[in-house]
């Protein structure tokens, strides 16, 4: 018989009017890395909230057996007490507190008289940091660490609680490739130490690389649990489980007919807004009509900074260089002028920079081009609804009406609203920063289809992405960016992940 550390049986969780989970079963073996995957909205996070006690016992049906004992958690404290620790995608660290202070927050190491014994705490923190392979002083404020290191602090914090079952929700979503590799390595080491992990992830490559079993959830039900040891489970196989169909291709076909040059940027240099260093240096690039151009670069290479500085100087200072739209030089000083010049920029972080989450679909779609709907400063609300309704249909935004609040849509639908908003500004060139981040496979395909429709209509599209296969799948041409410099320009026919990666990691001296 299998030795299961955790069994969740027949879990059903109902919200008013909808079943979020229906008869979900999950069995996790002791000491394994168990992946859970499914499309956005499939119910993964809800399941983990049931497990960790965020939704207390009694608010769901079904049974949870942990370590052979049926358990009923009234809250997170109960689940942590038995050794279940969840690390959320959005890290819950206090930036101004030190690593050690964060690590023992709510779990302080008391000394005599109930006061915190900081020497003991710092020493223990140092030991745990060594264990997760993080070479930092425990008194360093967490805010000074990068996201990758913060993630390690979270794991060290979990270890300090004597974790037995570690749940990681999208652990590598915000990490670059190096940090991701490091994290996956750490998960393997924790497995050797006997710690069981559950990993929720969209990244199928990572799932197949580290996990022992993967459970696929679709529409609030368990579809299947696949063992990855047999070696027959491919990414395509997992996707089939997630979407319930075979995706013929990740990327829709497109014929490429680049036309005249739409955007040319010359010798573009941008300084960091507060620090004394260049973030982008001497960048030159062009985008032609009917062309999808990619920008590949590791995190910190200056991709977003480059795009945002072009977009009406929304980032950086001391920006120098020239830019031309349709051969005519433009000098947008702010975002409004950039929009007027025909440039649109859809951000990588739609929740913080792209959308007003408390507003409805129509007001988000019209936000960047309100003047098109207005005469003498008065907005024509009915025309606005008509426009928004048109985009809702053409972009296939899944929402009952344009009066639906954007914050309640799934990631893929939110992204479609962001795209609608920028399309309505009628741009010449559309800059898409990580257009498919955090959205599921089916919605990704739709976004790619929309991009193809745009270039077919003669728009120029510039795509920034961390996922090289995505760039290879949708672009005509790819620029590589390394440490603020453009280190290469590769037609897609000659590009491979390997040669792009080589250019993306090219040292500064060589690039010059």
């Amino acid at each position, binding site marked *: 018989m299998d030795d299961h550390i955790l069994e969740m049986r027949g879990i059903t969780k109902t919200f008013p009017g909808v079943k979020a989970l229906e008869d979900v079963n999950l069995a996790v073996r002791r000491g394994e890395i168990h992946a859970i995957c499914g499309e956005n909205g499939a119910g993964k996070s809800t399941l983990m909230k049931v497990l960790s006690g965020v939704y207390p016992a009694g608010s769901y049906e079904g049974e949870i057996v942990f370590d052979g004992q049926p358990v009923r958690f009234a809250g997170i404290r109960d689940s942590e007490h038995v050794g279940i620790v969840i690390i959320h995608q959005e890290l819950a660290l206090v930036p101004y507190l030190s690593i050690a202070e964060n690590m023992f927050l709510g779990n302080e190491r008391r000394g005599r008289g109930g006061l915190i014994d900081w020497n003991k705490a710092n020493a223990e923190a140092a030991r745990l940091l060594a264990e997760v392979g993080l070479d930092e002083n425990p008194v360093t404020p967490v805010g000074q660490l990068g996201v990758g290191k913060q993630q390690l602090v979270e794991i060290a914090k979990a270890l300090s609680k004597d974790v037995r079952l570690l749940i990681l929700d999208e652990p590598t979503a915000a990490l670059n490739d190096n940090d991701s590799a490091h994290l996956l390595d750490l998960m393997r080491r924790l497995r050797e130490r006997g710690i069981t992990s559950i990993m929720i992830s969209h990244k199928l490559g990572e799932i197949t690389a580290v996990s022992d079993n993967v459970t696929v959830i679709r529409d609030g039900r368990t579809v299947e649990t696949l063992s990855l040891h047999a070696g027959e489970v491919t990414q395509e196989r997992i996707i089939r489980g997630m979407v319930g169909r075979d995706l013929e291709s990740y990327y829709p076909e497109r014929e490429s007919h680049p036309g005249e040059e739409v955007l040319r940027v010359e010798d573009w240099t941008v300084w960091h807004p507060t620090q004394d260093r260049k973030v982008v240096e001497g960048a030159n690039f062009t985008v032609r009509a009917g062309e999808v151009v990619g920008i590949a670069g590791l995190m910190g290479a200056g991709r977003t900074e480059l795009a945002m500085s072009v977009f009406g100087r929304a980032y950086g200072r001391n920006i120098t260089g020239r830019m031309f739209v349709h051969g005519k030089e433009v000098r947008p000083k702010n975002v409004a002028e950039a929009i007027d010049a025909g440039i649109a920029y859809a951000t990588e972080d739609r929740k*913080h920079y792209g959308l007003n989450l408390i507003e409805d679909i129509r007001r988000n779609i019209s936000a960047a081009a309100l003047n098109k709907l207005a005469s003498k400063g008065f907005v024509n609300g009915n025309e606005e609804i008509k426009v928004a309704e048109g985009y809702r249909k053409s972009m296939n935004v899944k929402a009952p009406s344009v009066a639906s609040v954007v914050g309640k849509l799934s990631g893929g639908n939110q992204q479609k609203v962001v795209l609608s908003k920028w399309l309505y500004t009628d741009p010449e060139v559309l800059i898409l920063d990580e257009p498919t981040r955090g959205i599921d496979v089916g919605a990704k395909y739709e976004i790619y289809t929309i991009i193809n429709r745009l270039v077919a209509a003669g728009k120029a599209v510039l795509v920034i992405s961390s996922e090289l296969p995505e760039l290879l799948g949708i672009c005509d041409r790819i620029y590589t960016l390394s440490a603020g410099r453009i280190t290469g320009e590769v037609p897609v026919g000659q590009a491979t992940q390997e040669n792009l990666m080589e250019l993306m990691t090219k040292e500064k001296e060589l690039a010059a």
Partner: protein
Amino acid sequence: MTRTVPPSEPEAQTATAPKDVAPAVALHTGTSNVRALLTSNLRQSGIYIAFVAIIALFTVLTDGTLLSPGNVTNIVLQYSYILILAIGMVIVIIAGHIDLSVGSVVALTGAVSAVLVIQQGMPWWMGVLAALATGLAIGAWQGFWVAYVGIPAFIVTLAGMLLFRGLTLQVLDNISLSPFPQGYGRIASGFLNGLLGGNGYDAFTLLIGGIAVAGYAVSQYRSRIARIRYDQPVESFPLFVAKIVLVGAVVMYFAWQLAHARGLPIVLIILAVLIITYSVITTRTVFGRQVYAIGGNLAAATLSGVKVRAVNFWIFVNMGFLAGIAGVVFSSRSNGAQPGAGNMFELDAIAAAFIGGAAVTGGVGTVVGAMVGGLIMAVMSNGMQLMGVDQSIQSVVKGLVLLLAVAFDVYNKRRAGTSR
């Protein structure tokens, strides 16, 4: 994935569909329209229900005195300047700011006016213009610090509260000035009556009430026609008529009460014009939209081409302007300028906005809501005064009402967050 913002959870999203469909469908079919109208915006309708309940409560407690003609007039006169301030304040709050200085600005603008009119003997309208100019200048000053220097409005206006109070004392040389000439006094305590005569009531007031109702009906009808032209759902025609009749009845009852007292207060006309103007500005203009966009998500607004600094600047200029009007009205009503005038007005105005459904985090709120919020405070104060309730108890009750109103709002949001 996200635990802090339940509504943005992908899992929760699937649950939205049935809930959101309901009101739209109801509007289409024309059945259960009233319920849809009420539940479609519980946050707003909750305030109206509370308002009616409070009026009913105090009408009973005061044996009907609350709604007597003379007292209705009194409420309008007594609280008009708070309502004027609340119009500007709700816009400031929607944009995610706060203004703690308006009480001091009311004092200073009134003082400037008093010095010119009472001390220097200038005509009364010079005083009005000077007060408004002072308000605009103060607004520009605060707007500059908030918008262009980037200092939080809380700090700028806290400084302004001290600064303008001090300047009031300077301008007045620490003494009260009174009385104003008659023309100035009419602004806050004058009435338009007797223009058309009437027997025991003022026909002119009723005529204005009738014109207001007709104007409302016409604008509602035109907006309905426009919606139909754009294939938008509209409420069933009987319900539409019922709504207009109901509003018309309330307005005409109000006008009837005024007509039996002293006629149409001039300050009510000022207030009505301001409410209508600013309702239109906030809901129908590009500027209004940008205010909501800034409050809802500053970064997204910036990246959508909203000129955030300019919008913030004008929000504060506008607040200064309205504080100037309130300063004129208040000084006119108190028939002079006192160093301590307008004390705590900012808190009443802020409370009105929050009771009226504005969100502490910005991005949410309406002018009409703030007016209802202000009137809730007004009716409660007035009712308790009529009952002879001690000032100290009044303060306690008002504090609790503010707390409960915002708690209700937070509860509503949380419920919306978990159930959807």
